[in-house]
């Protein structure tokens, strides 16, 4: 699906918007302006945005902001949000404390 996004499109200059300061990803405190700017920096897919800004990488794992980020990116690219592929779903689906993972590595549990 990402193939449909034209990498060479000209987005024009970044124009600051009054609500740029609004937080979109609460866990990682990423603002709307940062997401819009990232698109202008060339981050055209949700995965790129995610790696660039850490949106959806916090406690809720994007449960709250994934749709919101997608809408903002889509609007900036002037495409339908459906064109944008969601970020890859990977384990752990829920936050797992490092301590718990370490327990497994040390063989403290079966």
């Amino acid at each position, binding site marked *: 699906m990402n193939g449909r996004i034209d990498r060479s499109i000209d987005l024009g200059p970044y124009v600051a918007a009054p*609500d740029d300061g*609004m*937080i*979109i990803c*609460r866990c990682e405190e990423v603002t*709307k302006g940062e997401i819009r700017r990232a698109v202008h920096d060339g981050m055209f897919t949700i995965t790129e945005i995610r790696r660039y800004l850490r949106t959806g990488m916090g406690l809720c*794992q994007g*449960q*709250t*902001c*994934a*749709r*919101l980020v997608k809408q903002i990116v889509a609007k900036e690219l002037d495409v339908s949000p*459906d064109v944008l592929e*969601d970020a*890859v*779903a*990977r*384990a*752990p*689906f*829920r936050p*797992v404390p490092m*301590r*718990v*993972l370490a*327990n*497994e590595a040390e063989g*403290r*549990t*079966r």
Partner: protein
Amino acid sequence: MERYELIVVGAGPAGLSAAIEAAKAGMKTVVFDENAKPGGQLFKQIHKFFGSKEHKAKIRGYNIGETLLREAETCGVEVVLNATVAGVYEGRELTVMQGDSIKHFKGDSIVVATGASENMVTFPGWTLPGVIGAGAAQTMMNLHGIKPGSRVLMLGTGNVGLVVSYQLLQAGCEVVALVDASKKIGGYGVHAAKVARTGVPFYLSHTIVAVHGEDCVKGVTIGEVDAAWQVIPGSEKTFDVDTVCLAVGLSPMAQLVKSAGCEMNGIVPAVDAYGATSVPGIYAAGDVSGIEEASSAMIEGRIAGAAAAYQAGYLEKSDFESIVTAHEASLGSLREGMFGPKQRGRVQTVTEEGIVLSQSLLTKGYLDESDLAHFPSIQHGKTGVYPVIECTQNIPCNPCQDACVKGCILIGNDITSLPVINAEATCTGCGMCVASCSGQAIFLVEEKPLESTAYVSFPYEFLPLPEKGDRGIALDRSGAPICDAEITAVRTGKAMDQTHVVTMKVPLDYASTARFFRRR
């Protein structure tokens, strides 16, 4: 590594139903749920469900949850709580976090019933404490007994927004307004009407402009939107609230199916008629495979559980087919009607019966006087006590028909048909239809021209209950005060399941408008 024949992820209505069906057939079944309590959303649902008897209509959600849990226990389903499924790997292996450790499990089959999460919308102030999801409000009220706030504004008029608004009122909160950017109320008219008659205003084509407050919600400003969804300058209205509830839709929690490599259809996994995904042995049921009501989720779960059992050789083909046929018919009937998936996005102006739909109900939340004449179930001017059924949309529901032993109310075999009054039968005024109606849409009226009074009975689910002799004010369908009223009877009974039937005496002229009561 522990092995189960079936692992179900999520102990909500779909997951429990799948586990029951599979365990009944003989499968060694476990259900993992990350929560401390099973039941998913069911235990937050304190309203009576729609549907027909086979869908557990007129039973409150939490009672349905209790029944499911008991059934699961009887069938030998193992339900493991505080167990978070963290990953899925090759060969249907799951990693599950329990306490301080990660455990590995392998399922011959897996049913994913992870449900959905609430959507959010953004506006200045949306991250302030006090802006909460409607589901969160329900959790606070109905699971933990905590009032989410004192003065609440609800954004969203789908069934979730309507039902939760009513529950907020029941919890003693003041709901200052129901707001929706859409032009029409999204949920059932009967749900809207029971909120409207308490006096809550609806603002359609409105959205939240901003929520105010420094460190918590102190107020909210809404504004009317034009065709391009832009706020019309000058249309802003500000309310003094401490809570803003968002009921703006749900999104399937599909990480597990995605990560397992199941083919997706947009945001939901592509599934066949039995809930099987593209990955052999992995099924999806309930909201994760498409947002619907809990009633549908339970049936989808049953079908997926039976399919897994059949695949594993625990069910004969003929048994499997008869289970599926019965459930599919039952699911089909729930999906009919104005709110069914086939109608999504379509503009509807008339009912299946060809009656013009009430625009007032769709925009203000209540039936206008001028609509009443169109609907044959809304009668007036008869002798003796008679039912008035203010149910005017094709929703899948028929408990009213079953409730009346006198046969006064007819819906027929198609449960989405509008209820009609059987002219042959005589109403005794027993009140069972009033208490059984999941939409609280049935009233009893008895006109006494000689005394110039009328007795109006209506469903009541608030505490404290009015008492016989109480004097107050009758409210009309919009919640506006219209006349003096005196309570003449309050009926309560086990079969009524906490929908009390309250009767008030009003002047004769108000027989067809007085629909609710407020103490002075």
